[in-house]
C-alpha cells in the first residue's frame, strides 16, 4: 500500500488537477458540448484511480474513505430520482423538465438537465471508484504478505 516511485508521484501531482478540472468541465457543460454526467463521472473515477495507484490506498483513504464512496453513490442516485419526482409533483408527469429553459447556448439553460448531469456525475464517479476499490484492494486487506508489493 505504499504507492509507486517518485517519478509517478510527481507526474500525478502535476496532472491530477487538470484531470479533475476537465471532468468538472465535461459534467457542467454537458448540455452545451459533447460530454455529460456519465463521461465526467468516469473521468472523476479515473483521477481517483490514478491517485490510488500512485500514492497508495492510505493517502487517498485520508481524503475519501470507502464508506463515503458508497454514500456519494447513493446520494447521486437519490438526487436524480428526487429531481424526477419533483417534476412529477410540479409538472404532472415523471421527469418533467420543471425549471425554466433559460437562454439558449448559455451555461444556465436547459432546465434541470445540468443538475441531473451533476447528480449522474457524482453517482457514476463514486460507483466506478468503488468498483475499482472492491476489485483490487479489498482482497489485500488481510493477507498482505504475498501481494503487498502490488500496491
Amino acid at each position, binding site marked *: 500500500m505504499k504507492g509507486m516511485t517518485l517519478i509517478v508521484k510527481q507526474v500525478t501531482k502535476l496532472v491530477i488537477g487538470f484531470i479533475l478540472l476537465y471532468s468538472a468541465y465535461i459534467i457542467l457543460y454537458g448540455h452545451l458540448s459533447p460530454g455529460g454526467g456519465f463521461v465526467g463521472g468516469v473521468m472523476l473515477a479515473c483521477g481517483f484511480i490514478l491517485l490510488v*495507484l500512485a500514492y497508495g490506498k492510505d493517502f487517498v483513504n485520508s481524503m475519501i474513505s470507502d464508506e463515503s464512496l458508497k454514500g456519494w453513490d447513493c446520494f447521486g442516485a437519490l438526487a436524480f430520482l428526487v429531481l*424526477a419526482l419533483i417534476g412529477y409533483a410540479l409538472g404532472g408527469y415523471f*421527469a418533467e423538465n420543471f425549471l425554466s429553459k433559460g437562454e439558449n447556448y448559455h451555461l444556465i439553460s*436547459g432546465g434541470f438537465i445540468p443538475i441531473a448531469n451533476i447528480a449522474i456525475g457524482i*453517482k457514476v464517479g463514486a*460507483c466506478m471508484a468503488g468498483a475499482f476499490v472492491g476489485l483490487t484492494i479489498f482482497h489485500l486487506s488481510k493477507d498482505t504478505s504475498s501481494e503487498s508489493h502490488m500496491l
Partner: protein
Amino acid sequence: MVILWILIAFMILAAIVAVEAKGLLSTVISVGAAGLILSVIFMMLGAPDLAITQVVVEVLCLVLLIRAAVMREDSTLESPPNRFVIAIGLIGCGILLTSVYFAFQSMNGFGQPLMHLADQYLQNGLEKTGAANYVMAVLLDFRAYDTIGEATVIFGSIIGVYAILRKIGKYKHEGNDLNR
C-alpha cells in the same frame, strides 16, 4: 471511406491478436488498441459523445483489467484446439453473417433511419429543452425515464460488487466458518 475500411481492418486484426495472444497483458493491450480505433471511427462518423465515452470507459476498463486480472497471478491458459468446437463456431458465424447480409439488404442506406422520431428530436430539441447538445436533450429530457433506468442498473450492479467483494466475512474468523 477508405480510411474507415482500413481502421475496421485494423480493429479486426487487434481483436484476433487479443484472442490468440499467449499472455494476458498482450491481450489487454490488443483490446485497448481495438477500443481506441473504435473511438476514432465514432469520431469520423460524427459522434463525439460516443467517442469520448468510448475512450474514457476503455481506459477505466483497461486499468481495472490490468490491476484486477493481469497483475494478480499468471493465468495463461494452455488448451489444445478442439476441432469440433472450432467447426461449430465457424458454422455459426457463417449462418450469422449470411442472415445479417440478407437482413441488411432490406434496410435503408447509411444515415437514413427507418424511424422518423429522431427527426422530431432534431427539429424541436433546442426550443423544447433549451439544451444545445441534442444527445443530452434526448438523454435527460425526452428519454429521462430511460436514463433513470440505466442509473438504476449501474447502481444495482455496484451494490452487487460491494456485496460480493466486501471485506467483512470474506476471511475466516470467530463465528464465521463458512467462508474461506
